[in-house]
């Protein structure tokens, strides 16, 4: 049932979507919905689906489909809709560049290098993982050190195990999920190490990925050295103080033949930087308006390429909006320009979109810097809302309604999330 990649590309499209993961597929559907006729998805993998293809565990779709699905099931639902709506998909193809006239240069195994023109484009390239270089772990540069997501690809798609005895650095969900995944495939997981004093992933994963299998979780502990000549043989781990500095005299050695790094995701922003889009220094993704349009007219962006999400359901929501607006751009039905800048204030790391307009409702996504049990979100002086249990690992979303802005005539609104006294 999975469609074959189209054999003959058209020379021009209304909307070209870069990336065919959950964001790209939803954006393409949104574009069709708002009147774009010729829509193309370009994906570099052998089939569309993005990261969902390797996320074989459940937890997807509770909001969007009101059902709990695995990653591949969620992807297949969107792919079926895309095919039903006559969206073209070219797989095994890579977008090299988009020029000022929105000509998209792409390279594919089947068609070589081609230039097609697009009236609007949507960037949906997703994220990449931070690697050892980002944290500069000392030691030898042996094999067997890889990111958790890459290990997930090896195990779930390519069919081989990364090793026999693994240490995992980072207690975010990817690390926890891989602790379980490896265990179910017969790999020994020596432990999960987390530099912060609290685990980063969902409680459900702490229980079902670690406790279920008696895999120890060492908080406030990190890997301080990697050992091994050709292949990793072990790591030195050490507890850290309140400034996250390792206490070398309390270190100990853990033998292993594999080290998985689950130390964070960043937007895949090569193309974004190449296009010289305005980039938000906190998210590392392009600055976007409330229509998910970037600083270049007609170039929209959505999903992990804008800011790292936790729930794929919110990715889909955001992407449908981006696609819909790309479609409006093509058909000439653009909504009013944004007139209010949103400024991340106290305890708010960033917010997306970075601007809004006063004529319609918007969903604003943000993350806190510090966890708070009971807190109050303030949108300037015009609106406030009580929140329960906010923490950096879970995105907060706020519906901003036009009536909040009725009497507001300023240019900017600061969003603060403060402890409730």
């Amino acid at each position, binding site marked *: 049932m999975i469609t074959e990649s189209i054999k003959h590309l058209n020379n021009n499209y209304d909307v070209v979507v870069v990336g065919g993961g959950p964001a790209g597929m939803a954006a393409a559907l949104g574009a069709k919905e708002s009147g774009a006729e010729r829509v193309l998805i370009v994906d570099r993998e052998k089939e569309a689906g993005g990261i969902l293809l390797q996320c074989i565990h459940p937890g997807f779709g509770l909001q969007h489909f009101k059902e709990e699905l695995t990653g*591949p099931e969620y992807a*297949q639902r969107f792919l079926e809709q895309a095919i039903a709506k006559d969206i073209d998909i070219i797989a095994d193809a890579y977008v090299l560049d988009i020029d000022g006239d929105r000509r998209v240069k792409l390279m594919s195994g089947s068609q070589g290098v081609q230039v097609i023109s697009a009236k609007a484009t949507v960037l949906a390239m997703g994220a990449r993982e931070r690697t050892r270089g980002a944290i500069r772990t000392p030691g030898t540069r042996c094999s067997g050190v890889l990111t958790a997501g890459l290990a997930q690809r090896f195990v779930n*798609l390519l069919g081989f195990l990364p090793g026999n005895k693994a240490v995992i650095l980072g207690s975010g969900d990817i690390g926890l999920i891989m602790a379980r995944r490896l265990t179910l495939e017969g790999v020994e997981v020596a432990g999960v190490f987390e530099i912060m004093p609290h685990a980063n992933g969902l409680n459900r994963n702490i229980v*079902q990925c670690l406790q279920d299998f008696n895999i120890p979780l060492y908080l406030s502990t990190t890997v301080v050295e990697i050992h091994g000549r050709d292949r990793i043989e072990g790591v030195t781990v050490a507890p850290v103080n309140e400034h996250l500095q390792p206490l070398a005299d309390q270190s100990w050695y853990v033998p292993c033949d594999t080290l998985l790094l689950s130390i964070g995701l960043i937007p895949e922003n090569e193309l974004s930087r190449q296009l010289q889009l305005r980039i938000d220094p906190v998210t590392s993704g392009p600055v976007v308006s409330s229509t998910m349009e970037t600083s270049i007219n007609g170039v929209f962006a959505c999903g992990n390429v804008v800011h790292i999400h936790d729930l794929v359901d919110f990715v889909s929501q955001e992407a449908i909006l981006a696609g819909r607006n790309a479609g409006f751009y093509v058909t000439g039905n653009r909504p009013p320009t944004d007139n209010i800048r949103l400024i991340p204030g106290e305890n708010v790391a960033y917010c997306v979109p970075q601007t809004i307009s006063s004529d319609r409702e918007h969903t604003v996504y943000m993350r806190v810097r510090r966890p708070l049990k009971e807190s109050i979100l303030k949108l300037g002086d015009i609106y406030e809302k009580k929140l329960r249990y906010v923490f950096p690992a879970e995105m907060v979303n706020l519906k901003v309604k036009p009536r909040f802005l009725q009497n507001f005539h300023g240019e900017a609104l600061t969003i603060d999330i403060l402890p409730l006294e």
Partner: protein
Amino acid sequence: MNQTTETTTETTISHYLCIGCPLGCRLEVEADNGHIVEVRGFTCKRGEEYAKQEHTEPRRMVTTTVRVNNGIWAKLPVKTTAAIPKEKVIELCQQLRQVNVTAPIHIGDTILSNVFDLGVDVVASRDMPTDQN
């Protein structure tokens, strides 16, 4: 926080981390000779129910992959149609590691039926087309 059980005479106190919402309440189940006497630590009904279920009959959904021949990928993701007893999870995965299927496969195809006589099947989580190359 680990699941632990303290014992004094025939009374046991077991600890569970609730997974219902981000609060992550620390639940306690006190039992006498295996019968639940009291559940403590929850702040909502779901938490109370979860503690009882986890104590008496913890169950888990299982998702894993099986080897597929001739498919566009080397592995096919599969899932159980319902949650199975937690203590059977590793054994099921060991069984599934011996299973080989051949493409094309359709989403929902049964890979193993009625595992451990529980009325639960293991099914394909996606279509797996044949590799054209």
